[in-house]
């Protein structure tokens, strides 16, 4: 794909509404649909062309885990009861249900070959499943706090997982062992006033060449229970296993970066919610954003359309906002 973003031209390209606050969103690999999970336990599927909406019901709790296998035309969704559902992308009922974790499934990822699904959650485990049959392959243990995200490296046989405390582990998939660790602890804090941990790697994304890994969340927390802190994207140099850049908003913003995507043209984009919603566009060579775009409501996630032109931002008011970030 040779699309180039022009952040200053970011403009609405569709609003998809339903009443329940949204949690997570993804486009399907064909780019036909936008999926968003809501606080009513339903996955909403909109056809982008005509805006038609279908409800995928079955989950009995919230979910943020969404992933796809284009090959098998599958949607995978993982919920806070620990279940993973398999859906035909264009269907309305699940075809398979796996009790994957004890407690929340926090995230799902499908590998490049689409033969494997990774899930992670509050039981501090990462589990690998074969696709499309959902058979358990391996369990990866070692995290000492809730595992918030997983992602497969685009080219190497490696899996990355990241937790509440900002610990990022890189796993050899075949061996099931940790090859190295990255430090994203800036995205965590134990607030001693309130006696609780805040943070976690809320969103994770590789650049398409696999040379960088972006981890997003909240930092500088001074008041965990009021959410007083700032969004941050920690961009790692993958080979060097070190921080390449700490991507921050130029203008101070109070809130959490809930979603981050790495565009093939080199932009790193994040969406945040806190005192309202925002989108920022960075390039890796500069810590401050090149452009900030105000989203009318708190953003809860961020997805990049396969066409590389559009971004989906699921918001707390139940509206899935789609933006075109290319030149007008």
């Amino acid at each position, binding site marked *: 794909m040779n699309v180039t973003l022009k952040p200053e031209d970011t403009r609405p390209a569709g609003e998809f509404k339903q009443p*329940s*606050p949204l949690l997570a969103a993804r486009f399907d690999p064909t780019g036909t649909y936008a999926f968003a999970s809501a*606080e*009513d*336990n339903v996955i909403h599927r909109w056809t982008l062309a005509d805006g038609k909406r279908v409800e995928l019901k079955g989950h*009995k*709790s*919230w979910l943020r885990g969404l992933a796809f296998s284009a090959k098998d035309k599958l949607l995978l969704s993982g919920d*806070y*009861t620990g279940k993973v559902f398999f859906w035909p992308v264009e269907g309305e009922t699940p075809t398979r249900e796996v009790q994957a974790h004890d407690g*929340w499934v926090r995230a799902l990822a499908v590998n490049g070959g689409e033969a494997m699904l990774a899930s992670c959650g*509050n039981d501090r485990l990462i589990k690998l499943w074969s696709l499309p049959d959902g058979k358990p392959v391996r369990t990866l243990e070692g995290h000492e706090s809730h595992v918030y995200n997983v992602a497969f490296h685009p080219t190497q046989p490696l899996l990355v997982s990241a937790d509440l405390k900002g610990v990022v582990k890189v796993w050899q998939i075949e061996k099931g062992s940790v090859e190295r660790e990255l430090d994203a602890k800036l995205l965590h804090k134990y607030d001693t*006033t*309130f*006696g*609780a*941990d*805040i943070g976690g790697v809320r969103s994770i994304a590789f650049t398409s060449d696999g040379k960088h890994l972006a981890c997003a969340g909240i930092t500088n927390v001074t008041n*965990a*229970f*009021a*959410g007083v802190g700032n969004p941050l994207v920690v961009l790692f140099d993958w080979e060097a296993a070190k921080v390449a850049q700490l991507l921050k908003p130029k203008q101070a913003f109070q*809130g959490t970066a809930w979603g981050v995507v790495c565009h093939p043209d080199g932009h790193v984009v994040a969406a945040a*919610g*806190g005192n309202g919603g925002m989108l920022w566009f960075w390039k890796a060579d500069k810590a401050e954003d090149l452009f900030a775009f105000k989203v009318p*409501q*708190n953003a809860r996630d961020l997805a990049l359309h396969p066409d590389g032109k559009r971004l989906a931002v699921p918001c*707390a*008011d139940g509206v899935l906002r789609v933006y075109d970030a290319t030149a007008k």
Partner: protein
Amino acid sequence: MPRNPACGSTEHVLSRRGFLHGALGVGGAALSFGSLVQPAAATELNKQQKRVLLVWLSGGVSQLETWDPKPGTPTGGPFQAIPTSVPGTHICELLPHTAKILHRLALVRGININENDHGKGAYFMHTGRKQEPAMKYPHLGSVCAKLLTTADNPLPGYIHVTPKGNGGVSKEDAAFLGPRYASLALSDGQAPANITLPDGVSPDAEAQRQELRGLLNDRFASARKTAETEAYTGSYDQASQLMARRHLFDLTREPEKSRERYGNHDFGRHCLTARRLLEGGATFVKVTHTNYDTHHENFDFHIEQLGEFDRPFATLVTDLHDRGLLDSTLVIVMSEFGRTPKINRNLGRDHWGTAWSIAVGGCGIQGGAVVGKTNEQGTAVTDRMVHGGHLFHTYFKALGLNPNKNWYINEQPIPMTDPKAEAIAEILA
């Protein structure tokens, strides 16, 4: 125009005679404590030592994430409800250990205190009275220290096990009962400072210097004796008794297995200290768990906080039962209010005094009872609405105290509980 809510001075209720005769000390309110309770009541209570365990979930725990879950509703959030040891009663999945012992507890699900302010809510829940400018009422802890503690009880009547950094004495919570009944706060559950003899002073030497001090005081008192000098000399006796009991604060004396059951974290240790204090004769022990004021990320934080609360609390109640103490120990788990059914844009819940719950158990309480209901989404109480005043009456009755009695301040009667409320009979044994 802001009201000054802390305008509580006892002068408000003093009679003209009280003013003229002035039993007050210089600039203060040191009253003649002896006149506070009718003598007959005091002896009646000595029959069986009762005690109270108050677990204070500071900040406002969410009733939807604890005692009154509403899964599958727009306000319910992501958690499921789980069955408990009480058939037909479900609580939030975040309390699996407590669910197993719910038959030892009763739930009050219809609380409306009409208050969303931390300070005012906490005052109402601790004193059984809505905060008003005219009068400051004492905390339940100070009331119990006054009414339940026998004269020979060596421990301070109202002990507060607090998280690190919150030690000292609150001079406010005993109100007109006087500082003797104020809470003694133990920061991080540690023994009060200076609880061991200084180096060089052996127990023998201590006994001798205390004896001499006593002799000197007797000489002085033969000519000059006041309530203040008595309070002063008495404080050393209290100190000695507390020193003799410092083993109660020493958790290394607990078998390792026992410490494991309570959990290797602050609240776990504090619950274990509370058990030791209650076993050691403490009348009223409050344990604070901080914090629950989850305006942001309510669900993640409740996983963490209730994850800390659940097991030690259940262990503590079970231990009290196993040691034969639960029948004489009133257990209360409460906050200053609950949390909004509406989930805000930051996945948080805000202050909510309108429809929420507490749990009580032990002495005088009908285990397994559930009183009060809220509507489908938890936005209103639909059945058996009660407030802090009703709860206060209920605590009194559970402890075998008469809630319709008065304190007497300079011969002026002050009701011990809100005269407009009454006990919640449905949860009394």
